[in-house]
C-alpha cells in the first residue's frame, strides 16, 4: 500500500481521470474503483476524498446529481465541461512530473 503522503498531491488528478473514464460515480464507488485499478495499493481515505470532491465542485470542475434511494440519498459526481478539458492537462502534467522525478532520482521508468 502506498503511503498517503505520496498520494496527497495526486488525489485530484486521480479523481478527475477516474470520473472521466467512468462517467458519473458516487463517493464509495470511487474508492472501490481506485482500489481495484491499483490492485489494492491505493486506498482513498474518506477524510481526504470528500474534502477534495467538494473543493472540485466549488471550483466548478465537478457537477453533482442526487438520487433518492429510500432513506438513503446518493450523490453522483461527474465532470463539467470545464473539468473535462482539464483532465488531459492534469494527467500530462503528472506524467511530466514522474519523468522529472525519474531524472532526479536517477531511475529508469521505462
Amino acid at each position, binding site marked *: 500500500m502506498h503511503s498517503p503522503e505520496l498520494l496527497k498531491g495526486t488525489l485530484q488528478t486521480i479523481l478527475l481521470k477516474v470520473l472521466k473514464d467512468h462517467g458519473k460515480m*458516487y*463517493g*464509495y*464507488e470511487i474508492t*472501490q474503483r481506485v482500489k481495484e485499478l491499483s490492485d489494492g495499493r491505493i486506498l482513498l*481515505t*474518506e*477524510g481526504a476524498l*470528500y*474534502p*477534495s470532491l*467538494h*473543493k472540485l*465542485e*466549488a*471550483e466548478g470542475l465537478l457537477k453533482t446529481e*442526487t438520487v433518492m*434511494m*429510500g*432513506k*438513503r*440519498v*446518493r*450523490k453522483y459526481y461527474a465532470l463539467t465541461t470545464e473539468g473535462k478539458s482539464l483532465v488531459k492537462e492534469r494527467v500530462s502534467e503528472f506524467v511530466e512530473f514522474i519523468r522529472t522525478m525519474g531524472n532526479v532520482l536517477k531511475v529508469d521508468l521505462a
Partner: protein
Amino acid sequence: MLTEDHISYIIKDLNYRGIVAEGIQEELIDHICSAVETEMTSGVRFIDAYHKILKSFGHTSGLRETQKQTIQSENSKPRNMLKNYFTVAIRNLRKHSFYSFINVAGLSIGLAICMIIVLFVINEISYDKHFANADRIYRIKSEIKFGGNHYNMLYAPPVMANTLATEYPEVEAAIRFRERGSYLVKRTIDNIKEDHVIWTDKDFFKVFSIPVIAGNAETALAEPNAIAISETIAHKYFANENALGQTLILDNKWNMKITAIYKPIPANTHFHFDILIALEGLEEAKREVWYSNNFQTYLLLRPGADAKQLESKFPELVAKRAMPQLAEVLGGDLTMEKFNAAGNKMEFTLQPLSDIHLKSSLQGEFEPNFDIAYVYLFVAIALFILIIACINFMNLSTARSANRAKEVGIRKVMGSFRSHLMRQFLTESILLTFISILLAVLFAYLLLPFFNQLSLRTLFIPFQQPMLYGIIILVALAVGLLAGIYPAFFLSAFKPVSVLKGHVALGMKSGFIRSALVVFQFTVSIFLVIGTLAVNRQLNYIQNKKLGFNKDQVIVIEDAYALGTNRVPFKEEIMRSGKMENATMTGFLPVSGSWRSDNPWWVEGRDPAVQENMVSIQNWRVDHDYVKTMGMNIKEGRDFSREFPSDSSAVIINEASVKRFNFSGEVIGSKIATFGDSGNGEPDRNKLITLTVIGIVENFHFESLKENVSPLMIELNEKSEGPISFRFQSQNTQEVIQLVEAKWKELAPGQPFTYYFLDQRFGSMYASETRLGKIFGIFSVLAVLIACLGLFALTAFTAEQRMKEIGIRKVLGASISSIVMLLSKELGKLVLIAFVLATPLAWYGIDWWLKDYTYKTEIGVGLYIFAGAAAFLIAWVTMSFQSFKAASSDPVKSLRSE
C-alpha cells in the same frame, strides 16, 4: 442487504456523533451504508461491519474531522469569504441606516475638507518649483538700519546685479526688476489699464525658464523701448494678428516695440507679469550708486556654486563699494566700523527661490505670499476634522456594541475565530469609508469653486490622473482601518459565555475611552470656535480703530495723469457740482500701496555728519486741501493755507517726528533741513533745503496696523500727477460715481476710468487676514457640525438603550424635563471638560497670532465664555432633541412588551 432499521440506526448514530452539516451528512451516510453492505456480503454481522467501517473513518473524531475539512475546502476560496463579509456588512449598514447616515455624513464632510486642504497645500508647496533652474535661483534680501529707520526689504542698489554678475564667478546671471505701478496701454486710441507690468533686465528668460513662443528670448529685452508680452496680452491687443514686431503705447507717451511673446506665467509662481519692459531704457537703472535701493535683484548661480559662500563675500563688497560712496554723500570719513558702531546696518543676504512663497514677507514682494505657519495650521485642522469624523465612527460602533455583543457571542459559538470577526468589522468600516470618500469627492468638487474664490487660488481635482484613484483607495483603506481598528478589537474580544448570559452591559457608563474621545472632539471644536471669534474680533478692531484720519466717504480717481492738462479743470468742475466737500491731488495716501518716499532730514543747525541727528522720515508732497480731505487733525499750529504764500517752504510733521527730531525749543517755527537734488537724483551737499514747521498733525496710520506709526512730514507740491481724491457728503455713492465718471469721459475720452473708495482699499490691507478669518470660520463650523452629529447619534443611542428605564420613571412620575436632564447630563459634563481644556490652548494660539500686531484688541474673558456657552448650547440643543423625543414618548409603548 441493509434493512430499513439498519439505515435508520446508521442515520441516528451519525447524527449523534455530530455529523450534521448539510451536503456532507447524506453523502457520508450513503458511503457508510455502501461500505457496510460490502462488508456484510462476506457474512459479517451488521453491527460488527458498521463498527469496522467507523474505525476506518477514525471513529467520531475522524468523522468530524472529515466533515470539518469538507466544509472548509468548500469555502477556502477567499472570494467567497470576502463576499460573505461584504454581504453581512451591507446588511448591517442598511439595518442601522440612521447610524450609517451619521457616520457617512460626518466622514464625507471631513474627507472633503481634507481633500481640499491637501490640494491647497500641494499647490502652496509647488510654487516656483516648475522653473528649470529653480534650485539655483536666489534673491537678494537687504537689511538697512539707518537714521532711526529699519528696513527688511528686497530692494538692492542698481549696480549690485551687474557687479555680482561680472566680478563673482559663482554668479551665472543676475537680473533686476523695477516696479513702477500700473500702466495705461493702448494700440491706437483706447487705453486699457494693465497692472502686471515690470521693468527687467535682458537675462530674464535665462534665469526664469518661461517658454518664449515668438521672438528671440536672448535678445528680446536688450534694447531700450522693447517689451516682451504674455500670450494673454498678445491675444487681448492683437486678437488674430501676429503681435511680434508691433507697437504698444504705454501711458500715452512711450512707443514700445514687442520683441517677444511668452507663455502665460503659471499660477503657482510668485509673480505674474504680463508685460516686461526692457530695463535698458530706464536711466535710473544705469546709476552706479550703492546708497539707493530700488531694484529687486535675482541671481542665477552656476551649477555647484555655494550660496552660503557667496553670501559671506557680501560684507566685504559693502565695505569696499558702498561705504566710500556713503561717506561722500554724508560727509566725514565714514568706514564700515564707524557705520556699524553707530548702530547702523547695511547687510545683503540670499534667499532661495523655494523660500519665497511660504517664508517671505518683506517690503518689495511682487504679490502677497503665504505663510508656512498657516500651511501647518491648515494641515493640522484637516487632520483634526478627519479625526473628529473618525471618532464619531468609533464611538457609535463601540456604544452600539451591546447590540452586537449577542451577534459576536453566537458567531464565536459557531466557531468564528477572533480574526474572522475583526475582518468582518474592518470590512464594515472600510466599506463605509469607501462610500464616504466617493461622496467626499463629490462634495470637494462642488465646494472647490467656493474655496478658490476665498483663497484666491485655482485649484481643481485632477480627475485625469490615475494617481488620484490610487490615493483614494489608499485613503479609504487607511481611514477605514483607523476608524475601525478600535471597535474591531473591542467587539471581537467579548467572551461568548458572558455575552450570551447577558453579563456585558455596555451603556454609556462603560466607555472611558469613548468619553475621552468626545472630550477630544469638543476640545478641538471649541478651540476652533474661540480662534475664529478672536480673529474676527481683531479684524473688527482694526477696521474700526481710530486711525487719525477719516477713511469713509472718500473716492479716489486713479491714473489722473491720463487727464493731461485737464487735471485741474476736472477737479474744479466736479467741485462746482456741490456734491463734494473737498478734493486733493496726490499719490501719497494713508493706505498701503500708495506712494511712499523717505529722505534723511535733520534739525537745522545740527551736524548732518553725526548719525544721531539724522531722521529718516516719510516725505509726502501734497496740496493745500490734503489735510481737510483726509480728515486729519492738526494738534498744534495750523494747516497749509493759500493765504500764506510762504507756505511753499513750510512743513507739517506728525507726532512721531516731533519725538524723533527732539527739538530743543518750540516746535512750531523750528526749521528742518536736507540736501537738495543735484539734478540726476543724487543729493548735492552744497545745496541745502530748509522748511519751517507750521503744524503738528496727530499721528495717523498709513500702513497696516501691524506696524507702528513712523515719522512723517507733509509739504506742498501743487504739481502732483497722482490720483485725485474727493471727500463726498452724499450717502448715494452711485450718484457720486456717475457724476465723476461722466466728467472723466468728457475730459479724458478713451482713457479707462478707474476708482476706489478709501475705506475699501483700507479693508484690502487686511484682505489676507479677512480670508483667513473666513476660512477658519468655515472650518470651525464644520468641525462643530461633525462633532454634533456624533453627539446627536450618541444621545439617540442612549435614549434607545434606556427606553424602558425612561418608561418606568415616567410611570413613577418623573417629569419630561428631569428625564431630558438625566439623558444629557453625562455628555454635557464631557463638553464642559472639553471647554476647560480648550481655553488655555486657545489662549496660547491667539497670543501667538496677535504677536504680529502692534495694535491688538483685548481678548477678554467674555469671548471665551461666549465660545464655551455657544458650544455648550449647540451640544445641548443637539442632545435635547433626542432626549426630548425619548422623554416625551408614551411609556405604554416602551413597557407594553416584556
